[in-house]
């Protein structure tokens, strides 16, 4: 076997072991080294040269990136997740027909969907969804994300929050926690628009907090412009945003008419 490849394989094992041990620092250093080593392989994307060990190399590389994604979830680093996921993706989309399907593929794709949902990037979410085959949509991991999105869109936030209990994979928990926050932000945004003020009690219920402390903590942290006064949460400051502009309809009408007249005159 190619010495370089064996070196990578060995290091990969070390990396996986460290990951299982949750020794994140070791993981990071190993991963960084691995990535640099991987750039030397010409069989990997984007070149895809058909070298002798191409399949093997691709498998190893995919394995590394899959674990890198899991690592990023564990370290709760969304940027790293995105980075690693994009580097992993060609192994699924472009090299998929040459490699045996990975066990991790659907969980990771599902994770990514979840991430998009968390980051409220709905457009990208649907783009990703469109790229998946019909059979993939049946996969519980994907299905979970899709259902979440539907509930999210419907405003059935309860269902979103209860879905945390039914995660198909243990790595999903992190994102589900984040999702709860996203939901709360969404509700907060809506309330701001919908009400001038709310009683603290109502606000707590609406924002799905279990105690008033949590509520005030949240307000201080996320919405310092809100005011708590006399047992009410007052959103007035947010109301200051300028009223939407009126359409200058009369002006438009006169303009259009004058154009028409001019045109008639020219012809």
């Amino acid at each position: 076997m190619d010495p370089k490849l064996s070196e990578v394989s060995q290091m990969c094992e070390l990396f996986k072991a460290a990951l299982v041990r949750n020794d994140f620092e070791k993981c990071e250093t190993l991963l960084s080294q691995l990535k640099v080593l991987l750039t030397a392989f010409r069989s990997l994307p984007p070149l895809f040269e058909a070298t002798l060990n191409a399949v093997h190399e691709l498998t190893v590389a995919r394995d590394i990136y899959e674990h890198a994604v899991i690592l990023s979830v564990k370290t709760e680093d969304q940027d790293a997740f995105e980075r690693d996921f994009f580097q992993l993706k060609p192994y699924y989309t472009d090299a998929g027909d040459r490699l045996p399907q990975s066990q991790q593929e659907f969980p990771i794709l599902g994770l990514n969907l979840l991430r998009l949902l968390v980051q409220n990037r709905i457009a990208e979410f649907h783009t990703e969804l469109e790229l998946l085959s019909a059979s993939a949509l049946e996969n519980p991991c994907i299905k979970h994300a899709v259902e979440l999105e539907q509930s999210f869109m419907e405003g059935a936030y309860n269902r979103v929050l209860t879905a945390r209990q039914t995660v198909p994979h243990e790595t999903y928990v992190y994102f589900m926690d984040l999702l709860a926050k996203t939901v709360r932000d969404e509700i907060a945004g809506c309330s701001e628009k919908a009400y001038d003020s709310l009683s603290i009690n109502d606000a707590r219920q609406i924002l799905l907090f279990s105690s008033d402390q949590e509520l005030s903590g949240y307000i201080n942290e996320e919405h310092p412009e809100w005011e708590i006064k006399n047992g009410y949460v007052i959103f007035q400051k947010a109301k200051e945003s300028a009223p939407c502009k009126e359409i200058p309809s009369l002006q438009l009408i006169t303009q259009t008419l004058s154009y028409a007249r001019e045109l008639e005159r020219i012809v």
Partner: protein
Amino acid sequence: MAMTVTSAGGLLAMLNEAHPSLKLHALSNLNAFVDYFWPEISTSVPIIESLYEDEEFNQRQLAALLVSKVFYYLGELNDSLSYALGAGPLFDVSEDTDYVLTLLAKAIDEYASLRNKAAESKDAGDIDPRMEAIVERMLDKCILDGRYQQAIGIAIECRRLDKLEEAITKSDNVHATLSYCSNISHSFVNRREYRHEVLNLLVKVFKKMPSPDYLSICQCLMFLDEPMGVASILEKLLRSEDKNDALLAFQIAFDLIENEHQAFLLNVRDRLPQPKYIPTELVQPASAETESVPDANAAASEDTQMEDGTQAMVGSSPVVDPKEANYAERLTKLKGILSGETSIQLTLQFLYSHNKSDLLILKTIKQSVEMRNSVCHSATIYANAIMHAGTTVDTFLRENLDWLSRATNWAKFSATAGLGVIHRGHLQQGRSLMAPYLPQSGSGGGSPYSEGGALYALGLIHANHGEGIKQFLRDSLRSTNVEVIQHGACLGLGLAALGTADDDVFDDIKNVLYTDSAVAGEAAGISMGLLMVGTASEKAAEILTYAHETQHEKIIRGLALGIALTVYGREEEADALIEQMTRDQDPIIRYGGMYALALAYSGTANNKAIRQLLHFAVSDVSDDVRRTAVLALGFVLYSEPEQTPRIVSLLSESYNPHVRYGAALAVGISCAGTGLSEAISLLEPLTSDVVDFVRQGALIAMAMVLVQISEASDSRVGVFRRQLEKIILDKHEDTMSKMGAILASGILDAGGRNVTIKLLSETRHDKMTAVVGLAVFTQFWYWYPLIYFISLAFSPTALIGLNYDLKVPRFEFLSHAKPSLFEYPRPTTVATTASAVKLPTAVLSTSARAKARASKKEADQKAIAEKSSGAESTSGIGKSSSDKDGDSMQVDVPMQKKAEVEPSFEILTNPARVVPAQEKFIKFLEDSRYIPVKSAASGFVLLKDLHPTEPEVLSLTDAPSSTASTGGTAVNTQGSVASMPVDEEPQPPQPFEYTS
């Protein structure tokens, strides 16, 4: 390749990795795939840009290259270029991709415009050194790859004379490269000063070469106006032992002559050093000979000077040095050439001996023109003069003296002046020919009109070579105060002293101008312009002031044109004056401004000038100015005749007849003699315009375009000839268009059908006299006698080979084309109506074919065996091939297969008529006794004699020397016309079978 990536997302993600080698990996892969994934990458451009700006990142240049490529795909070329500059050496100029090519072009454009701006504002602008580096890399690469022309182009464009020199000297064929270079410097370098710099460099390179191409050097030097350089080269060549060097010197002289730059030539001649010792016995017989034999090289005026010089020196040095003697002899010849007398002499002989003008056409015109219509009457006289320009054949006038005497007043003036056109170039006898009409000292017997006309005629005879006659004209001008004579004398003097900028002459004319007589003042204005052509002197301002003071429109117009003439060819230098004139309140001055634009930028196709002219053509309030603005386009564009029809096509459909007229003449001027199909298509509808003067302009323009085009090459020539005939014969036609038709028939057969209108010389330089001639010619709108100026634009279409003695030896060469393509038009038959002509031609042509077939073998044999005189044998071949006619083709198509095929070539004998379109078919025979010094297909060519010991057979020795001989020619031409029908007497048709 089994797989490709479908997205650059992974690589883009990699850019965000912390490790630099990962970034590098991503960058280099992205760079490889940018062609496919630029839309994806474009969203990440800020990241890559930040990499480029990151001082610590060691592959910043790669990042810059990537960004540059993305910007290129986004169409942001400016951003792309600035990043490409950042990419430094990674931007590979030799890469053959759209990206690189586009950016290179962009970089070079940018660089060139920066350099030009820097050069114009005279301060060294801050040019990005990186851009300079790229351009230099490109240049070096071109030179390395042997693409010298490209390198030269870029170097010239970017004003990198150092690189230009490098490119030229490193090229494998320096001669070819140099000539290419001088060509493009004329056609593509727009700014005059810069062109001078380029030419200076060329001369420098030329001189460094081991075997310099003196022909080209001298052309360059002429452009730089450095007579000293030319003179020293000529001297060197003359002093050489080798006879061929002398031949070369003569050839150079002839080439210089062709550009018609009188002042420069005089300068060269004056700077040629006199031989140190002049052996008396050699010079005296030589000069004696010159006087006795009219076709010797030096003219009388020249001789007097020479003799003066020689006699002064003879006493001091009686020693005879053969070398010096040799030099002296050659010098005499060279001076003869430089003064233009040799070439004029030879041209005259050629035009005289090859005259093929058709008197029958004139006769038809004369008969159909109404007696009392003086416009048409004079037009006929003009047409006759133009038809016989330079041939010295005045038979028509002599035969119709009665008819001629109907010309009175100004008509008489132009009738007399017409003689000048007919005898154009007859330098020795011009004066004696005109003697009967010239003002006699003492007695005021003659009519002032004929006297004035005679002075004008003298000017026409001596146009641009007026050294001999200048003094006489000045005296005549001073000794008269009749305005008609002053008018003629002014025009004559202007013509004779064209472009010499002689201060004394100028003062004389100015005195006439200040008499404030309308008739004389107009001529004086034009004459001043002629005198100062192309000098851009301050006198123009003086003239302009006077133009504002005077009340006479005629004078203002004359002066306006005069001012325009002074800025001839000065390009940007004239801008201030043009600006002043075109903004004037007086429409006549603006009108002059249009001419100034036309002449200053003549033949440059300068975009700025075109834009200005088009602007005036549509926006000026005066019709005259608009007409002239359109017309002026013709002058600006004559170096690119293909452009003109396109540019004026819209104007030719203008509602304003003046603009239409201008468009017609613009096409006529710029496409003169080209027979360009688009030009004809544009003019055709105009010849039947609703407005009479537009028809007139279109007919004249059409004639200018079609001059010397044979019916075989464009059938519309025949159509046009018939149209002219119809207009002339039509009683109800307007006088204006009738006059146009008469003039057109004159121009169509100009100079005995042996001349064309040519504004560019063989070396693609402007012919000053021709341009000036046409410019004044277009003034005939206001003043008919100025029509004669068109004769200045005529140049004989001949190949004249000369030997060392400047004689015309018998010499043959090949025209590798069907003779019918370039033959003379067939003489018209006696029948007067167009319908009657058709039938006999059909019969005649078949029989002519039969006869021709029999006679051809004879003729061929004759041509090979017994070398008869040039004129006869060429005409013989012309006749034998004349069976190929448009009509006959249709009549007997079935016979075509059987019939003998027309030969695909013809042998021409020196001197021969070679029309411009024919030039590319001319081949010199390899086993010939003579070898041309330079391979040119027209004009004067010096021949190297390979068998100098054998006796030479000379052709073309007969000269139209006196009036008596002209009478003789009248008989000759008459005879030939009369004998034509006899020649073509019908014979029984050949047996044939019907195949269909």
